[in-house]
């Protein structure tokens, strides 16, 4: 039955699909093409109209009736636009018309061309006709006879304009010849006449040309071409229509037969349906008479069938139950009415789970439920009422639950001691599960420390029918020992005979443990080295430990019952204690440093922690204070502080302390409105002393100098050793800069006095720079910097003198700051530019690589030398951003040049050590390389020799990580530093660049010659590449070539150039290399 219906449905669907498909095809054939056809037709109509419009306007132009050409222009523009649309190759709608379209547009194009000529020609002719009478007027003024002749001629001409015949033309030409014969005595008149004749002649010529153009225009067979196009279009259309009609008829027949098939199918389906109905009724009857509740849901979970019992079982569904109701609706209605349980009684999460389970309604009815899937995916639900059996079961369970949930372990044994029942608590405590324990003797729990005697006594008591109480020291299954208090009593049957023993036992291990813990705590309390005081809620001492007595000197009995205030040193304010206690009250604890007094009256620092102890109910019970003596710790701390702030050699405040004091002084100077003086003292000749007599003498000299300087200043002033042989003196509250001068003079005098050291007189001097706050600077740093600058100025002015900081020094600072400010904006303002200088192969003189060199085009100051702005960039950290910009720019440019055929070109970019700190790392270089698509070996990073010399772990790692990428490293300005072979070996360097200063003196200076030769030999031995910088003359080239230096760079080959200039240079280089 079911199978049959599926088969029917399949056929039905197939037929239906076929019918719809055919109908769709029909519609498509009906529609298809007609759209394209209409479009082409519309276009053809428009073309026809435009052509006619054009003809009309051309006629108007040649008859001088059109006053402006805008309408003509719009017609011809539209035509040209249509030509573009129609002549796009490969358009389906034109494929049958292609030849005709081309022919048509050939004609139209010619027409439009002639039209353009006509437009201009007509303008000329019109002007002539308009002008000739005016010109004739000028002849009239000269000679009336000639005027009349001219008039007649004009008359003929106008007649010719209107009806041009050859005879008319001949007549006009004859008259014109005659007129040409006329001669006037004065040249002015003659000129008027000739001008007249020129215009008539011109008009005549243009008229005939216009006529010729008009004939040409009319001769163009655009209309014939159009007809041809139109006919072809129509013919094609006719054929298409016929074919489609045939198709439509065929399809219509197919559709008809398909529909017929559909009708037959629907009819047989109907009959089958009736048969199904009958068997359905039978099934319904059977179900209705079942004693169980029954419900059937179809695959869509819609109720199909249910019986009366089902409605009785679920009274709240009474109004809802009917065929077609969704299972979901019933579920949602059941909500709190039913609870679902597993057959074993566990709560179920899912409602209506599959299989067997229990349902408990709110009326306490119990149903055994079973839900099963039918073969078509529906659901059969059967329920039988088991309320009665459930009730008796629950009675029993109540009793057993008491045992099960008892907080004490319960064991029931037979009279011979075999365990017959154990409760879950027993399992939990002993570690044995019920299955393991039942059938065993309780002996399994024995730890072995109860004597045979004790066991015997227990059994005797029990067998006598009495209760036994005692403690067991048992062993759990896991092996650890626990304490149990047990009560064992016999169970008797109704005849009074002992059938079982029941043991009720309690685990007392925790109690035992707590006792142990207490004992341990007491030991700690007694033996710790930290003093402990316990006070009660009223802060009276309850107990103290031995350490307390050791530290304070008080015995326990002396302090118990008293307040801890007896220890108070008197060093702290009341507010301090208030704060302490409020912290204890609010947070429950306080810890910190506090000074207390011992019994012997001495005061000592201690680290104290106080905690408030509260009962479980939150009531304050007591306080515990723990403290340790930190006298030694304090002393250490003081020593460290001194070392951090004072110079070990001279005992003077060091730089750190000076900075603190200066900052504080600035604050107080602001508050009190007074001035500060800052003297920056640098010893002259100190280095010489140090170098000549050694450090020991130098150190002692510094100590004496410090002492002398200290004597020159007041108590409130600070003398600090700033480093090396530099001292800084901070003068508080100076009324006048003259005070600073006076002190400076004193210091210079004191220092210039000879020092007597190791039986020698030693002479040194001092140069001092002075700044005054707030006049010269507003911050500590700036004050120091300015004083330093002034000190240098003093040194330059011949030592042993002082120098105030001046605005011109200020200007230099500001200028530098301004430059830094400008530099900050230079990138975004596009002021930075990369120049490129070629490096050539010594052998061929052809380009090998490029070096990227940064230029700054300052908007006001012009080009600024990198020597000026690079240090600024490094100091300010801007080098980070700028460096990244340069490498990205250079790599992009290299990529462009490579793209334009310079595939072998490579690029060198300079690197500063500061860039490492500013985040220039291998990751970034990798990013640039992948962004520009360059391989790593096309990039060389140039580092200075000085960077190499700063041989730090970080530098080595940094260069190593860059090198790992595969880029080349080269050393710039090689030879100016003092790098040794060992440096070069430590670093992954590939190329050395010989500094220009050596190249410059080649080949005449023997010292340079030998140096360059040495460098070259060294590079060869290390397998390094070589570039000579600053090559300017042919002689240098010859020398270096002979010395086998591979690569050369310098003005001789090319200066650093802009991109455009270098592009030209590269092109000429390529031409040269092709030619050679």
């Amino acid at each position, binding site marked *: 039955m079911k199978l049959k219906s599926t088969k029917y449905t399949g056929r039905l669907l197939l037929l239906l699909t076929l019918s719809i498909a055919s109908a769709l095809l029909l519609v498509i054939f009906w529609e298809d093409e007609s759209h394209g056809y209409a479009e082409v037709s519309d276009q053809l109509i428009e073309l026809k109209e435009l052509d006619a419009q054009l003809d009309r306007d051309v006629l108007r132009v040649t008859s001088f009736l059109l006053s*402006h*050409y*805008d309408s003509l222009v719009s017609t*011809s523009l539209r035509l040209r636009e249509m030509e573009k649309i129609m002549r796009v190759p490969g358009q389906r709608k034109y494929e049958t018309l292609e030849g005709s379209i081309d022919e048509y547009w050939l004609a139209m194009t010619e027409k439009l061309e002639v039209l353009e000529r006509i437009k*201009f020609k007509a303008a000329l002719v019109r002007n002539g006709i*308009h*002008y000739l009478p005016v010109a004739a007027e000028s002849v009239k003024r000269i000679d009336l006879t000639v005027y009349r002749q001219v008039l007649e001629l004009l008359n003929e001409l106008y007649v010719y304009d209107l009806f041009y015949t050859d005879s008319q033309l001949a007549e006009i030409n004859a008259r014109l010849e005659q007129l040409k014969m006329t001669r006037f005595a004065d040249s002015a008149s003659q000129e008027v006449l000739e001008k007249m004749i020129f215009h008539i002649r011109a008009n005549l010529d243009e008229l005939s040309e216009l006529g010729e153009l008009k004939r040409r225009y009319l001769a163009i067979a655009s209309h014939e071409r159009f007809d041809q196009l139109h006919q072809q279009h129509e013919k094609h259309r006719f054929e298409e229509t016929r074919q489609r009609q045939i198709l439509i008829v065929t399809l219509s027949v197919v559709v008809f037969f398909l529909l017929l098939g559909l009708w037959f199918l629907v009819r047989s389906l109907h009959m089958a349906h009736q048969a199904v109905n009958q068997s359905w009724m039978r099934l319904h009857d059977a179900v209705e008479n079942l004693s169980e509740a029954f419900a059937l849901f179809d695959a869509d979970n819609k109720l199909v069938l249910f019986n009366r019992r089902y409605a009785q079982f679920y009274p709240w569904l009474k109004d809802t139950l009917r065929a077609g109701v969704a299972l979901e609706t019933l579920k949602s209605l059941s909500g709190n009415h039913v609870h679902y349980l597993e057959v074993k009684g566990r709560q179920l999460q899912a409602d209506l789970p599959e299989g067997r389970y229990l349902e408990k309604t709110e009326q306490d009815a119990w149903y055994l439920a079973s839900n099963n899937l039918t073969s078509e995916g529906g659901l059969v639900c059967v329920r039988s009422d088991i309320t009665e059996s459930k009730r008796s079961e629950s009675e029993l369970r109540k009793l057993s639950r008491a045992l099960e949930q008892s907080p004490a372990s319960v064991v029931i044994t037979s009279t011979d001691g075999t365990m017959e029942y154990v409760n879950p608590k027993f399992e939990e405590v002993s570690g044995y599960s019920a299955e393991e324990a039942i059938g065993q003797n309780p002996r399994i729990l024995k730890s072995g420390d109860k004597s045979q005697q004790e066991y015997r006594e227990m059994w005797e008591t029990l067998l006598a029918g009495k209760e036994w109480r005692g403690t067991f020291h048992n062993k759990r299954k896991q092996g650890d020992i626990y304490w149990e208090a047990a009560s064992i009593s016999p169970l008797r049957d109704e005849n009074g005979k002992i059938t079982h023993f029941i043991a009720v036992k309690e685990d007392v291990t925790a109690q035992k443990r707590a006792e142990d813990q207490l004992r341990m705590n007491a030991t700690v309390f007694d033996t710790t080295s930290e003093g402990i005081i316990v006070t009660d809620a009223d802060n009276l001492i309850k107990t103290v430990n031995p350490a307390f007595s050791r530290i304070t000197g008080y015995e326990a009995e002396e302090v118990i019952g008293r307040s801890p205030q007896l220890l108070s040193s008197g060093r702290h304010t009341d507010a301090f204690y208030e704060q302490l206690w409020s912290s204890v009250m609010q947070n429950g604890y306080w810890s910190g440093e506090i000074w207390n007094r011992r019994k012997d009256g001495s005061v000592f620092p201690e680290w104290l922690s106080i905690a408030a102890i509260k009962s479980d109910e939150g009531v304050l019970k007591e306080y515990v204070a723990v403290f340790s003596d930190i006298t030694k710790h304090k002393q250490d701390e003081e020593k460290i502080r001194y070392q951090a702030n004072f110079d070990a050699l001279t005992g003077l405040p060091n730089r750190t302390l000076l900075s603190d004091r200066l900052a504080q002084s600035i604050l107080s100077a602001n508050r009190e409105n007074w001035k500060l003086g800052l003297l920056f003292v640098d010893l002259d000749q100190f280095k010489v002393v140090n170098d000549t007599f050694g450090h020991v003498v130098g150190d002692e000299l510094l100590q004496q100098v410090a002492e002398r300087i200290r004597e020159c200043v007041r108590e409130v002033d600070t003398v600090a050793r700033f480093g090396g042989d530099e001292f800084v003196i901070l003068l508080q509250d100076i009324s006048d800069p003259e005070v600073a001068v006076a002190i400076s003079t004193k210091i210079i005098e004191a220092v210039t006095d000879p020092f007597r050291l190791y039986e020698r007189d030693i002479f040194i001097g001092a140069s001092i720079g002075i700044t005054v706050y707030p006049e010269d600077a507003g911050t500590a740093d700036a004050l120091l910097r300015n004083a330093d600058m002034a000190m240098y100025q003093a040194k330059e002015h011949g030592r042993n003198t002082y120098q105030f900081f001046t605005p011109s020094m200020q200007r230099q600072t500001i200028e530098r700051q301004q430059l830094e400010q400008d530099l900050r904006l230079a990138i975004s303002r596009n002021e930075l530019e990369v120049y490129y200088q070629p490096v050539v192969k010594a052998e061929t003189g052809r380009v090998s690589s490029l070096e990227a060199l940064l230029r700054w085009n300052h908007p006001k100051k012009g080009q600024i030398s990198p020597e000026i702005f690079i240090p600024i960039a490094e100091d300010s950290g801007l080098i980070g951003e700028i460096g990244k910009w340069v490498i990205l720019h250079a790599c992009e440019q290299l990529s462009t040049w490579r793209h334009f055929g310079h595939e072998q070109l490579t690029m060198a970019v300079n690197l500063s050590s500061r860039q490492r700190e500013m985040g220039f790392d291998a990751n970034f270089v990798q990013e640039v390389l992948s962004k520009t698509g360059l391989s790593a070996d096309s990039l060389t990073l140039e580092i200075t020799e000085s960077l190499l010399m700063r041989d730090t772990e970080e530098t080595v790692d940094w260069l190593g990580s860059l090198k790992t990428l595969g880029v080349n490293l080269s050393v710039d300005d090689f030879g100016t530093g003092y790098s040794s072979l060992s440096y070069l070996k430590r670093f992954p360097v590939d190329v050395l660049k010989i500094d220009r200063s050596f190249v410059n003196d080649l080949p005449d200076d023997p010292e340079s010659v030998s140096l360059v030769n040495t460098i070259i030999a060294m590079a060869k031995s290390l397998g390094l590449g070589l570039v000579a910088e600053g090559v300017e003359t042919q002689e240098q080239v010859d020398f270096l070539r002979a010395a086998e230096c591979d690569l050369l760079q310098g003005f001789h080959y090319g200066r650093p150039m802009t991109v455009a200039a270098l592009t030209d240079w590269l092109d000429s280089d390529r031409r040269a290399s092709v030619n050679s």
Partner: protein
Amino acid sequence: MFNYLIILIIYLLSANVQGAEVRNEPIKPLPLHQPDLNLKLVDLGDRLFHDPRLSQDNSISCASCHVLSSGGTDRLPVSVGVGGAKGGIKAPTVYNSSFNFVQFWDGRVDTLEDQAAGPVHNPLEMNSNWTEVIGKLQNDQEIVVSFRSLFDDGITPENIVAAIAEFEKSLVTANSRFDRWLLGDDSALTDFELIGYRLFKSYGCISCHQGANVGGNLYAYMGAMGDYFKDRKSVVTTADFGRFNVTGKEDDKHFFKVPSLRLAAINSPYFHDASVQTLSEAVLVMGRYQLGREISASDVDAIVAFISSLLGEHHRLKP
């Protein structure tokens, strides 16, 4: 109260002007409104028109040679392109160019879209190519977003020229005094300008300079009534061949698109070869070589006065 009165009068006057028929003259007014323009596209075109990234070295934009504030040209004999390269011909104005029947002096393309691509590729002008230009524009997030919002396919050569062309279509100098006169405002022109207009017609200038753009709708032979190039006395250049350079037909030699006179008053120098510096001289030369007539100085003044009245308004134009 007085203000209201003035507003009312202005309203009545303008209503009067708008309601009137256009005078039947060979010159037609430029449209006051262009409702069909896509304003977002115009805005994008505006930005591109001023964007130097369209040139090879980012130095030159369309606006470099077509300076909108001063008449849509650079007022130079020949324009200066990338790297100082000099062009061969005087740059025509970009104003009202949508009313020209073809673009360039020699009419080598029909549409503004085709025109816009020309200078980008010309080595003497922007010296670039679409790949390069699009590459640069793709890096500008703002431009990319603008294109995406207007076109599904983002930045393409077609879309760039479409935007520029749309912008150029918005460059119309309407509401000139002459146009107002055409629309019936008798007080818009002075008597002297009206005399100039009459002379302009009677001398025959009007035969070629007619329509809404006062020219720009036909080709004319330079020197119809006298040998202009012989009298000019300087070497005949390729640019002098005009339309011949496009068609290769001998008949087309020295034919040029008749330029619009709408902004002639402010766009010196004159003619394709920039051979004349003043408008008066240009009128004289035109009379001599195109009409075969010597126009008297007083007539020239009147014609120049008339031509000046053709200058309309655009918010970018500040002559």
